[in-house]
């Protein structure tokens, strides 16, 4: 089925917000040369995206994906309550399962592809791929020394890292789907520096094999900030900056995507300000202060105005209605308002 206007959408979120002062404020711009010099000149940039929900990465990403502020336990492996953008997309447009994918960082995200909402659910959801799980399975029974740097899990509660499950059958299924031999995959993984690089590698494989019309990638390296090491947080921002540019370059280099793909880049929320006494600055996002709730969004693609800045505050929940308008589906249960500036 031909989609309206032949549109495709790639959404890139950062699980692990980045603050303005380490990114777009003058003192932070050195950390994001790619976004600043390569992407912004082609983008419409929303300077204030407010997240009024729970500031935990899984629940916040689920909220972004449903257009509703989800209220479940951030650390529980459960599906969103409200229908996801993936279900609206597939149901309304009658798209096959392989036309929408989520590439997500950790075990907690494996239920994000669909909701438990009546009339929707897993049969209409996105395929979810957790690259680290794939790698863990590929490594099963082998020495993991060369790959362990790619297996960092949730940083949000640094003392707690859930065990990566190694569901080999499912992993082999995904590997087959991606036309990847596990040996090739593990050989390539050795050359990568971080979990997010692994995620982008997998996303590119997906683009090559299936050219999904709706691809959602959640990056997570920045969240190392929870360990309190500022230098590692900055490293995470720089890596995310580079990877966003690489994703955009991959879109431009792929005839299936070039000229018909809109890319949205946004952190799920911010991090605590330095001056909030209840927090510890960049390390966490616990205070609920304005800085931890405010982030930005960048939109690039055909018809999107270049080098344009939108300073009015918008809501995190506006993403799903905007995607609905762009792709031609009706997210009937989503809150928020379509962002006319990019439609």
């Amino acid at each position: 089925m031909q989609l309206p206007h032949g549109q495709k959408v790639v959404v890139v979120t950062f699980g692990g917000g980045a603050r303005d002062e380490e990114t777009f404020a003058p003192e932070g711009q050195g950390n994001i040369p790619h976004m600043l010099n390569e992407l912004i000149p082609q983008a419409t940039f929303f300077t204030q995206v407010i997240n009024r929900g729970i500031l935990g990465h899984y629940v916040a990403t689920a909220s972004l994906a449903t257009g509703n502020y989800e209220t479940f336990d951030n650390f529980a492996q459960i599906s969103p309550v409200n229908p996801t953008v993936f279900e609206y997309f597939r149901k309304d447009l009658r798209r096959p399962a392989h036309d929408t994918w989520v590439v997500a960082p950790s075990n907690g995200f494996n239920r994000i592809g669909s909701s438990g909402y009546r009339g929707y659910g897993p049969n209409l959801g996105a395929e979810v791929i957790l690259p680290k799980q794939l790698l863990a399975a590929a490594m099963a029974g082998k020495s993991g020394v060369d790959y362990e740097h790619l297996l960092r899990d949730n940083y949000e509660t640094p003392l707690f890292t859930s065990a990566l499950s190694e569901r080999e059958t499912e992993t082999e299924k995904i590997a087959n789907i991606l036309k990847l031999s596990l040996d090739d995959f593990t050989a390539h993984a050795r050359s990568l520096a971080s979990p997010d690089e692994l995620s982008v590698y997998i996303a590119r494989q997906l683009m090559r094999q299936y050219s999904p019309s709706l691809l959602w990638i959640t990056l997570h390296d920045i969240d190392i900030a929870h360990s309190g090491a500022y230098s590692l947080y900055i490293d995470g921002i720089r890596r995310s900056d580079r990877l966003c540019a690489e994703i955009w370059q991959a879109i431009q280099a792929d005839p299936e995507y070039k000229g018909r793909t809109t890319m949205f880049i946004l952190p799920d929320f911010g991090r605590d300000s330095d001056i909030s006494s209840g927090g510890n600055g960049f390390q966490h996002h616990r205070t609920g202060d304005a800085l931890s709730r405010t982030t930005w969004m960048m939109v690039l693609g055909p018809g999107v105005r270049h080098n344009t800045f939108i300073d009015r505050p918008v809501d995190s929940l506006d993403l799903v209605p905007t995607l609905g308008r762009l792709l031609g589906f009706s997210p009937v249960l989503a809150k928020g308002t379509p962002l006319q500036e990019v439609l």
Partner: protein
Amino acid sequence: MLPKQLTARDFVNYPPRARHIATERLVLLQQLPLAFLPIFLRELTNYDWMLPIERVQIDAQMQLLGSLTGQQLAAKVQGFASLRLNAELEQLDWVNRPAVFIQDLTAWLWSTHQMDAFHSTAATFNGYLADAAPPPEPAMPRLGIVILGQGVEHTDYPLFRKLRPSGTFFHNIKPDDGLDILLAHAVSRAGNNPLQNAWVHWYIEGGVAAPFPGLTTISYAALDRPRKQLLNLTQQTIASGNSGAEALRGKLAQLKPEDIGLSQDPADAVLNYFQLSLLSEGSGTQVFSTTFVQWAARECLRRAQPETIVLRYTPRQQMQPMNAMLSNAPPAGLDPEGSLVDADMGAYYTWLNLCRLRGANEARFLVWFEGKSQAFAIGPELPRGTTSNSLMGIQDLLKLIV
């Protein structure tokens, strides 16, 4: 159970001093709202191991709240009382396990979009307590000293960037004997009466610390075994498959110093509970020495409100997979450059935290790139946002700020 149903028997499991206060102030506690009381009780359960200044503050706050009429008290805590709670919270054993209650309360407030209201209420209430029962003034102007950069020969990193608007940057410092001079100065501030000055002058070291008379000393190296024991305990809990992140946090909140190999000597109890809290409540303090020093400084300033605090950062271990670091994997090496960046931000946070204390207008602050010619200083007499070319030793620099 609701607060108004409290009886003295409910506090039978509390440590002696905390139990005494709770029973003595029972009528007051019965009038506090459920959204606030367990938070206060969590503090109170630690009363027996609190730092002296914390006890003074708790006593003063109890005195203050106890002096209010029922109507006045209700008005002061109205914001907490108006928060909507649920029946499950009421059924929790919030007297004996206040940490678990607070965890569930936090989740509830987030999920019902009441967190902003809670923060705002808490800020107003804390402001009232700070004004009406203020902490004591320091006996001398507070001094913070941060020593950083060990192991780095040269850096292009723009050191002290965030601090610079607040003071003077020196780039012509003679580094000779700098560490000894700074520590000797801290010792001299502690004076000749270490007993009277206990908990007032602190030295927090990222590596190995020698003991100094009059300085309460904490070092990352000295806590090596307790850190490892804590990580082992954590790994065992996770491996059991019965605990999620929240259950683990609840378990950590119940730990005693001896559970991670700290001494049971009553004379060490206050310091050991403080150290336990750094490891069990801090995030990343178990794996990175730089995080440990920064967090220990934050907690020291918040809780002990010291007159002197000296921090020395040392290189932390290189980044490894979090799973490996939490499993006590041997360090892959050190990361001096990254540690310098961590410490530079840590120094800025230490200054911010120093500024939150009483007497902040008179506070002095010095950061030195260890063994090198760069330093930064803040003091009432020093110009702000400037650079000094003067050639001087560390002793001369100290004279400029004290």
